[in-house]
């Protein structure tokens, strides 16, 4: 099956690969002072008293989750099979560039059930207050009570056309279109939560037509943070489905993009880890629908 491995060619490829590994880009680092201030804020707020607004949330799990997110944003995980990927991607961005503000919003929400962002007040309904802390069979998100609360509050306060049919939360809605995020809503949330200037190319059904995706992402990634809206089914290709709808389904934070051996080498964050993969050039064009870039690096 895999029994052919001629020597010379592979030794050369191996050498090139080792060189590329040695020179690989590092993931974006947090500002150490901002991170320290965020951790101090958690220390000051930490208490074992249950919040009167969130009856099913465990305070120990809440503060542990908050601390872990600030300490290692890489491990933020939206769980499977939820529709929280858009909220997770923008939270990962917030944790990298303004962890202090993120912590302030979270503690506000936990202690008062509401918080103020740049252009609106985020409120929480009775339904999601009861549901936060009870989600199960979602992997590590089962014990990440802060993430459960935050993602549900975002789902409830920002609505796009995908959420029109189902506006009120019912148990299990975290896996349905109640929690889904379209491209426009995603960019609106980023502006609203961070107050930064957010630029975007692309749309929900068609990616930017006259654009060299690789060159654009590569150039923008030098000075901006790039977030991609893409088709996850094409990212993890399989032919088990008869019909794969050519639509975007997933948000990721791009760490690096490069070209070697005729392939695009993609390095991005999603599902609590950094993912590295090689893609054919045409494939990359096929899977990307939206490119968001923010001058914060």
């Amino acid at each position: 099956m895999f029994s052919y491995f001629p020597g010379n060619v592979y030794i050369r490829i191996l050498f090139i690969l080792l060189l590329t590994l040695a020179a690989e880009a590092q993931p974006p680092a947090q500002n150490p002072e901002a991170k320290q201030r965020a951790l101090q804020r958690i220390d000051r707020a930490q208490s074992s008293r249950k919040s009167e607004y969130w009856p099913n949330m465990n305070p120990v799990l809440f503060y542990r989750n908050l601390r872990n997110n600030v300490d290692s944003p890489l491990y933020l995980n939206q769980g499977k099979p939820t529709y929280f990927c858009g909220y997770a991607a923008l939270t990962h961005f917030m944790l990298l560039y303004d962890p202090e503000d993120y912590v302030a919003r979270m503690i506000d929400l936990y202690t008062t059930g509401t918080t103020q962002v740049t252009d609106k007040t985020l409120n929480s309904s009775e339904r999601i207050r009861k549901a936060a802390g009870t989600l199960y069979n979602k992997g590590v998100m089962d014990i990440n009570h802060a993430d459960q609360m935050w993602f549900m509050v975002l789902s409830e306060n920002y609505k796009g056309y995908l959420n029109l049919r189902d506006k009120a939360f019912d148990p299990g809605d975290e896996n349905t279109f109640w929690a889904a995020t379209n491209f426009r809503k995603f960019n609106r949330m980023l502006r609203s939560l961070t107050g930064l200037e957010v630029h975007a190319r692309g749309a929900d059904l068609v990616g930017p037509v006259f654009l060299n995706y690789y060159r654009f992402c590569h150039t923008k990634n030098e000075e901006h943070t790039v977030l991609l809206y893409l088709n996850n089914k094409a990212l993890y290709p399989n032919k088990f489905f008869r019909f794969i709808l050519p639509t975007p389904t997933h948000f990721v934070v791009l760490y690096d993009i490069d070209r070697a051996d005729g392939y695009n080498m993609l390095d991005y964050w999603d599902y609590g880890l950094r993912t590295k993969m090689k893609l054919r050039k045409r494939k990359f064009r096929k899977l990307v629908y939206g490119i968001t870039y923010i001058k914060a690096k």
Partner: protein
Amino acid sequence: MKKVIVLFLLSGILLSSCFSAKIRKSEDYYFENRPALETLLKDYEALYRKQPFAIGFSDKRFSYYTIIMYTDSVRYLYNTHMNRKLVFDEMRQSSLTVEDLTGIARQIKDLKCLWIGKNELYIDNRKTMATNLSFKSQLFNRPFEENKYYILSFLETRMSKAATTRRLRKYGYHEVGRNVYFTISNRFR
């Protein structure tokens, strides 16, 4: 006349794919294939200790492999559909040998297993690792229904049986043996 025959044949194929007499996979599947499943599991565990990874197929004919290698902060994604030689050359940078991968690939192909990998399960806020094996379910080839997968789950940690079984039943798992459960899911990974 030819058109009528072709139409007749096509409708026959369509109908046969909608109605099938095959038996649904259940706990019997585990007992019938137990020796092969346990060998696969043992071999996978041994390789996983050398290098955490998950492996499976990306097509119905079991020709192309998808492999995910894990380190503590990075997952490397490979698919042999892209460039078989390049993928397995990159694999050589890991602790796994070509023989290791060949062996496990042959085993999952023989069992027609779509995917083998580990997942985290949280029961009463305690983490336990489970090795999951996914197979095509009975409904797999029906054209107008969502694909379903039969997943065998082998829990690593022994927990108090009553509590574990009760909680896992809530998650949709059915017990088939000591620390072995099966579930039907619309996701194979």
